[in-house]
């Protein structure tokens, strides 16, 4: 039986893992390779590097980081941030990513999903969607969640899949960093609408939230970041809570 996944996300800038402090300044929290390997050892099912670098120069270092990580990491690695073209997807895969997440570029040029799936297979094409509640629906935002679009999140998710995405990484802007739990109605709406795996992101504050994203939200996987980096909980504790809730999980020793 396919297990439910716990995905650990690291924000990377200029080749270092950084963490926002009160949404303003960024603090260096360590070497991405060492942190990724540590999270694998603790039982993380997957690692995501999200490049939040502002410049192309800083972003180029991510490919080097991916290469060094892939040589030591033996669980899947997803890379996202600043991916503009199918060639960028190819470069990230060659460098060491197993999957590549595409956000703003998919909205601007949806053909990037189709072209990437044709070249590299749908299984490595992740459509990353940032959504924010707007009345009784959810609106898609781009550029790191700053710029609203006219797209409805559920319809856009279906469109991404139709165009070739093999997985949806769904982030609730409302819940991101709030630690009050994932946006379960949003997660459920998307998970019910698409036939590919959905990774819930944004809002994890405790183990119960991770379990809820999967049971109530219908997500295949839950992404966590801040609560691990801040030492609120551990990968081991989250996996144990998933197991205690009778979710199928990969057990590590």
């Amino acid at each position, binding site marked *: 039986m396919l297990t439910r996944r716990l995905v650990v996300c690291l924000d990377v800038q200029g080749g270092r893992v950084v963490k926002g402090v009160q949404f303003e300044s960024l603090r260096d929290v360590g070497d991405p390779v060492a942190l990724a390997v540590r999270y694998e050892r603790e039982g993380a099912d997957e690692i995501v590097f999200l490049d939040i670098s502002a410049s192309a120069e800083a972003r180029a270092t991510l490919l080097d980081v991916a290469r060094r990580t892939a040589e030591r990491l033996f669980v899947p690695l997803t890379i996202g941030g600043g991916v503009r073209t199918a060639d960028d997807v190819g470069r990230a895969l060659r460098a060491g990513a197993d999957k590549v997440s595409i956000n703003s570029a998919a909205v601007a040029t949806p053909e990037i999903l189709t072209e990437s799936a*044709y070249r*590299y297979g749908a299984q490595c094409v992740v459509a990353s969607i940032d959504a924010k509640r707007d009345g009784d629906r959810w609106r898609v935002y781009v550029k790191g969640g700053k710029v609203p679009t006219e797209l409805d999140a559920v319809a856009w998710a279906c469109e991404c899949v139709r165009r070739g995405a093999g997985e949806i990484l769904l982030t609730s802007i409302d819940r991101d960093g709030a630690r009050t739990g994932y946006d379960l109605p949003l997660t459920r709406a998307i998970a019910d609408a698409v036939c590919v795996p959905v990774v819930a992101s944004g809002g994890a504050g405790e183990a119960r939230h991770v379990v809820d994203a999967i049971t109530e939200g219908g997500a295949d996987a839950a992404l966590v970041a801040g609560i691990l980096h801040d030492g609120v909980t551990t990968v081991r504790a989250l996996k144990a809570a998933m197991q205690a809730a009778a979710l199928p999980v990969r057990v590590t020793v």
Partner: protein
Amino acid sequence: MDALLRCTVFDYGAGNLHSLVKALEPATGPVRIETDAAAAVHETDLLVLPGVGAFGLAAECLAAGRDAMRAAILDGLPTLGICLGMQLLFAESEEAPGMGLDVLPGRVTRLRAQRVPQIGWNTVDDVTDPAAREAPLPAVYYANGFVCRPVDVSVVTGWTTHDGDRFPAIVRRGATVGVQFHPEKSSAAGVAFVHAIVHGVARGTLSQGAR
């Protein structure tokens, strides 16, 4: 690092080979990466067909050297196909036109499941494969929308089920082994499985009945 066994990874251009090479090298010594299918089967003890990409483009990359590679595998060259690399061992795929190696009778079809592709960790059941007995497989990592349907199911040495569709996780015939999962992405147990395959080649058990 000395070469313990000559291992060649056929690089058809699509994906990340770093993890695979790093998983192999403790058991094989330095791995050769070869983009020419015909050259890939020369002077090697183990051919590895890696597993990221789409069938159509992989078949295109394979085309020029396909017959030479097919002949070498049928002649007993120990071969490990991973995910798409496993699918290339069969004749054709629903994913795209193009010729696979056709060293195992059967074809590749779309996974018949509610959620496709299957992405994540799944178990391997009814395991009879010797490498998996040497290095037991707990949940292993899959990322596939297509699966192999061998004509002769006696080649299947491990099964997996996703949403009610049961399909081969491991196939083995003679010196030819295919795995639908990614052992190089299946943490320590997956890496140990890769080493068990290599040890099988070194002992000659992966080349029995051949050459």
